[in-house]
């Protein structure tokens, strides 16, 4: 007897990624659902155990802080994949390319003529109050005029099935290593479904990343020396930094490994002596990159790195200052940014957003706090936000004061009814909320990962998918179907 009975699976009215109704898998998910339903309870338990063992032996971890000490936790993973039909994915991919292309034009404009402000499309005060605008970056022309080489955009699906862009991460987006590792684990756990050959592969990401980084080298005629710059083992994404360096076959360096000389050349200290570095995939925030240019107390950075970059002696990915477009207030302008630079209609919708800097919007937000999600402009990891429908009256009251004190820092969105996907819980499947983070590489051309990282809120009814707050992840399958 099987434990999984799709007839009794209930997504409680939310859009479900695998089933259109109880007992009715979506076309792209039929094979998977059949295989899962054919498992005996013992077989299902074995598959789950196999995944846990694979994660342990592959050493897939993420780092959390707890009471002042650092712990490597096994990556929380659900064996039931999330499926997106290939035809839908192609439309999404086109939308993401359009979006990132426009964002890069936008960033480049902000650091040059600021035409978008002069033309009255972006209010000057948005720019003036942006904490991620770096005056040090004015007038710089990075290769291909691309600033955000690696972008991770978060997508969510609402009740009616529409896929929205929730935010764009343009500073140091993380998670791609887990996307790749999830696929490796799933291939071990559900090999029979892969045999159908309809699941599109994800594993060329690291070679695409390498090629993109190589294309930025200031010495294009030589084999470029590329490094990954990490803040070190205490960073929550250290596993990913090490993984990407290893997969690309490049050195994983810390700030103290690099040195910049008076000719603005960057070197790394090796046992062979100083070796010139051409491209740095940096996973350190702007403010810590270079104590000469930014935070003078930074121990993580490299003195002189900014002048080396400014003078074109080294490439930085992402470019410093790219985060100016990674701001939840700027986010609200992205549809207009796309129209302005590309003269196109956005292919992917934004979640409707209210900007507290505008009086009408602010009044609406303050009157509807119980219906809205309010976010600070510059926080990540799900911190510092108010989920109106779940907050107490006192919490809402306190938040209202914060908004009034600093309106530019807040934006609000309606609470979305995030879609669900079947997730293994206590030997059966239950609906859990999911989102999706695809990664977009921009160099001479733009490439999008096949799918992305699906994060899942493992806690029943929770909407928070961040791994630091009880989230897990799933493999994401882009599946060819016969549908047009």
């Amino acid at each position, binding site marked *: 007897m099987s434990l999984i009975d799709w007839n009794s699976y209930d997504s409680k009215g939310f859009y479900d990624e695998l089933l259109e109704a109880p007992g009715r898998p979506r076309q792209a998910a039929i094979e998977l659902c059949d295989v899962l339903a054919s498992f005996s309870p013992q077989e299902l338990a074995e598959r789950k155990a196999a995944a846990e063992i694979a994660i342990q032996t592959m*050493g897939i971890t993420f780092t959390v802080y707890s009471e002042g000490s650092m712990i490597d936790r096994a990556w929380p993973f659900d064996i039931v994949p999330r499926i997106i039909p290939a035809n839908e994915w192609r439309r999404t991919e086109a939308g993401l390319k359009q979006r990132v292309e426009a964002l890069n034009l936008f960033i480049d404009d902000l650091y040059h003529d600021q035409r978008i402000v002069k033309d009255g499309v972006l209010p000057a005060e948005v720019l003036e109050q942006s904490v991620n605008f770096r005056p040090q970056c004015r007038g710089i022309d990075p290769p291909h005029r691309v600033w955000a080489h690696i972008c991770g955009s978060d997508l969510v699906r609402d009740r009616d099935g529409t896929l929205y862009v929730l935010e764009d991460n343009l500073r140091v987006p993380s998670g791609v290593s887990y996307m790749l590792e999830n696929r490796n684990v799933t291939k071990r756990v559900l090999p029979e479904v892969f045999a159908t050959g309809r699941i599109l592969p994800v594993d060329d990401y690291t070679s695409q990343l390498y090629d993109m980084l190589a294309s930025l080298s200031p010495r294009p005629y030589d084999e470029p020396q590329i490094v990954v710059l990490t803040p070190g083992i205490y960073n929550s994404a250290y596993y990913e930094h090490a993984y990407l360096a290893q997969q690309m076959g490049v*050195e994983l360096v810390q700030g*103290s*490994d690099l040195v910049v000389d008076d*000719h603005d050349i960057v*070197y790394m200290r090796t*046992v062979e002596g100083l070796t010139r570095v051409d491209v740095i995939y940096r996973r350190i925030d702007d403010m810590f990159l270079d104590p000469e240019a930014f935070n003078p107390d930074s121990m993580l950075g490299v*003195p002189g790195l900014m002048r080396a970059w400014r003078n074109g002696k080294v490439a930085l990915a992402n470019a410093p200052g790219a985060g100016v477009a990674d701001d939840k207030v700027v986010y609200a302008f992205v549809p207009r940014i796309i129209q302005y630079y590309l003269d196109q209609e956005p292919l992917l919708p934004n979640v409707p957003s209210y900007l507290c800097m505008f009086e009408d919007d602010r009044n609406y937000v303050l009157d509807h706090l119980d219906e809205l999600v309010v976010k600070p402009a510059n926080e990540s990891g799900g911190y510092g936000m108010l989920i109106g429908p779940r907050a107490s009256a006192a919490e809402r009251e306190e938040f209202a004061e914060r908004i009034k004190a600093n309106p530019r820092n807040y934006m609000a969105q309606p609470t979305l009814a995030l879609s669900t996907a079947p997730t293994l819980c206590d030997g059966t499947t239950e609906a859990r909320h999911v989102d999706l983070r695809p990664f977009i590489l921009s160099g001479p051309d733009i490439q999008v990962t096949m799918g992305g990282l699906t994060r899942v809120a493992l806690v029943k009814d929770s909407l928070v998918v961040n791994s630091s707050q009880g989230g897990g992840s799933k493999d994401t399958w882009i599946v060819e179907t016969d549908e047009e």
Partner: protein
Amino acid sequence: MLSRVAENLYWTARYIERAEDTARLVSVNSHLLLDLPHHTALGWSTLIDIMGCESRFDERYDRRNEKNVLHFLCVERDNPGSILSSLASARENLRTTRDVVSREIWEQINELYLDVREQSDAGLSPRRRDSFLKRVIRGCQTVTGLIEGTLSYTATRCFIELGRNLERADMTTRIIDVRSGNLLPKDPEELRPFENLQWMSVLKSLTGYQMYRQQVRLRVRGPDVLRFLLQDRHFPRAVARSLESLSWELQSLPRHDRALAAVALVRAEVLEADVQSLARSPDDLHAFIDELQIGFNNIHDAIATTYFARFDDVPRAVTAEAEEDEED
């Protein structure tokens, strides 16, 4: 290979070897004291001198008795040279570079540290001392075995071997020093009957007794033991052998001239030592070992300056030489 990574590997290996050899040092002293007549024994004080941690010890304890010295050398967290601290340092060094070694090596070091920490928390009674020291020695040798069996012959392994061999040479001389330290009483006549026993303890603490018997085929005599431990080219814990391994490893690295020269100097000193007279005079032996230790420091400095160089200030401009290297 990055300098930082090389340095971490080198220190990981030094700390593991130091933990093992400190366990051996404590063990040889325990056995010596059991063999010596009570009124001649100088006891535990010499260990503190030999490890060069007098002031640190005296700040914390008023008496250099067995209990205090053992605690200080084995499990004292405030003593960076204790077995527990050495293992903690090995683990910390490797933690930041664990991706470059096989997973089993990291796991073994981690496990050994946690195990020793647990045993130290339980206290170090004389009855449990022996099994504690054995656990440490065995655990460290397991690490060495894993390195031998799982790590490719690349720069990674090379820096581990450098650290281990230098530390081993240094610690073997310290272990020999225990013997000279304990013979400092002015009347050597009194100790003559015990002399062989003492040298035997030294050999046994270095697991060298059988190898000695097989190679030397004579009864255990001071000068022969000293020659074996200092100059033998085949016994892995002999000073000359460790230095030879050091040269050999260095030759696979670039820019090794300075470090190789430093090793050659100490090797010559070791091979030319007059073991007959050193074995007769504990004072001379002690002075000779001090001199060797200065040589070991020079080797370390040469390695560190060449391969781990840290530039505390920004270099004006990298020398033409480095630029050329990079274009080749």
